[in-house]
């Protein structure tokens, strides 16, 4: 589904190279986790895949179901089925959360040549999904992420994911800033979306999120590369020995 080959990326502004040849394939129906120390390039990978400005791809490719992602505008990638749950969801004063969500859902439908969702139908679906994430009507009326707590912001990301029904979900440190209860709620939201046709890439520092979202494959990223790949037991190894042990082993 998601196929990243030999991806090299540097910052546009200066010559700092961040990704130094990432190779990764996420199959449909699978959950892959990427773990790694600070500065290893995990978040950069998610930004580059979703089309954020400020990065220059110097080599390699990334495709989703065969479609070359790196050539597309961010909105085209979204329409193609890619979704990034942000580590720091953006506040947008003046734009109502509900308006935002409906605009996004209908924009994607339109670009795929599907019919737009009516206001009534949309409301029904969003209410149901919001309820399972414990997002109340008040939160839907407020401007996007403005005045939301850390947990509310992350739940709002998962709600967007549930409404947009992407093929490929990237979760960038969705566990950061969450207490145990909030993390469980978010993980339940993610697990509810797991399906045969959908792939997940879960980026995290810690093993604890992976207790709730069970990965099929775990990758360790360091210095802009994937240095080790294994099963769920790899995450436990990180938890027990830290990154230092694993890195000294592979480098």
């Amino acid at each position, binding site marked *: 589904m998601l196929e990243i080959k030999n991806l090299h990326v540097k910052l546009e502004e200066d010559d700092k190279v961040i990704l130094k040849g990432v190779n990764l394939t996420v199959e449909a129906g699978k959950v892959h986790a990427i773990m790694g120390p600070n500065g290893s390039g995990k978040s950069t990978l998610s930004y580059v895949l979703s*089309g954020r400005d400020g990065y220059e791809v110097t080599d390699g490719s990334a495709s989703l179901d065969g479609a070359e992602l790196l050539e597309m505008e961010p909105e085209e990638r979204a329409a193609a089925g890619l979704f990034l749950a942000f580590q720091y969801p953006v506040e947008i004063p003046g734009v109502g959360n509900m308006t935002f969500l409906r605009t996004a859902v209908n924009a994607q439908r339109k670009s795929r040549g599907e019919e737009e969702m009516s206001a009534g139908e949309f409301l029904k679906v969003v209410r149901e999904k919001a309820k399972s994430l414990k997002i109340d009507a008040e939160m839907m009326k407020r401007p996007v992420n403005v005045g939301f707590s850390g947990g509310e912001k992350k739940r709002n990301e998962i709600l967007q994911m549930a409404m947009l029904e992407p093929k490929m979900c990237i979760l960038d440190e969705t566990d950061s800033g969450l207490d145990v209860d909030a993390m469980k709620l978010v993980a339940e939201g993610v697990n509810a979306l797991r399906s045969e046709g959908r792939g997940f890439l879960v980026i995290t520092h810690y093993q604890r999120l992976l207790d709730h979202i069970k990965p099929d494959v775990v990758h360790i990223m360091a210095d802009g590369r994937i240095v080790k790949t294994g099963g769920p037991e790899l995450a436990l190894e990180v938890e027990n020995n830290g990154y230092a042990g694993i890195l000294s082993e592979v480098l």
Partner: protein
Amino acid sequence: MALAQAKLDAAEARLAGLDLPKGGWSAAARADALARLRAMGLPGKRDEYWRYTDPSTLTTASPAGAALFDAGDEAPLFDGIDRVKLVFVDGVFDAAQSDDPAAAGVEFLSLAKDIHWAKGLYGVLEARGQTPVERPLAALNTAAASEGVLIHVTGSAAKPVNLIYLHQNETSDAILHHVIKLDAGAEFTLLENGPAAARFNKVLEVEVGDGARFHHIRAQGRDHERRAVTHIFARLGAESLFKSFTLTANGVLTRNEAIIELTGDDAKAHVAGAAVGDGDFHHDDTVFVTHAALRCESRQVFKKVLKNGAVGVFQGKILVKQGAQKTDGYQISQSLLLDEASQFLAKPELEIYADDVKCSHGSTSGAIDETALYYLRSRGVPLRQAQSLLVLAFLAEAIAEIEDEAIAEDIRQRLENWLARHES
């Protein structure tokens, strides 16, 4: 001296080209206004109050032409609002296109008719508004206007009155002067829209009685080359409410002045504006709010979206007089600059002579938030649509000053249409 003489000469030259109304009930008020104008002269570029806006094209004897805007199949503004329409074509009242004003449940007369109650009001607030700052173009208006409406609201008006200003002649030069009086406890909504003329000079005097509520929503026409200078003079009684919102989309030159006096305790005055300009566009909001009573509240909320070299100006002042304790004054002026060629000039002022007041003011200029734009796009919202959403979000605080949701929605729709037309 030479400068002062030039201003006086300009006034005489302008007057020479006008056919001043003679006699009638307003003769004395007009004669006074004429004397004021002749003493002040017309404004010049060197006047401090015109530092950021060149008044020369507003003061010439005849106006530059302005091509007519083709709205295509866009629905007329306020079309879905149940209102009484009064139509002016190039500044001349057109009874045939207008509704019967009686349906609004207000006393209505044309300025040309001889009437009693407006005698003590016509030009009075304009004259009060000449200090501490001179506003010669308003005095010119009082002296020269031969058209306008006089509206007396004695209770809660049945419907809003919509003054529609059509522009059909490319070189028209219109002067309109309206007077509105709300008795104690009365409520009234005034809607205004349209370009009016190639050049438009308008004065609106509003006397808001104790406990009365006045709502004003206007949209200035989109003819790209039109010019306008408008003044609102308002005086508020105790516990009254005055709310005015203006949308300006395009226009080579617009100067909107609002001079508001809070003279009764516990009164509230809100003035707001949303201006969007692309290219040859100069928009100036000049606001002067005087707090002269206890516990009054005033809000000034002005937002401008500028691109391709458009210029926005805000001069806003809050004057708190001695004894006007517990004043709550708020002023914000912000611009969204969509490119580096556009500019925003702001001069916020506070002058306070009471010691127990709360006054805040702020002014900012900024570009579109790139992170927010990326976030929206990452959810599948196309670039242009995402930009429009963020522009509307920027303007939201000003639009929020419109209480009637149907009217606010009309204004939002008009803005969206403008954004769609000015995408590139």
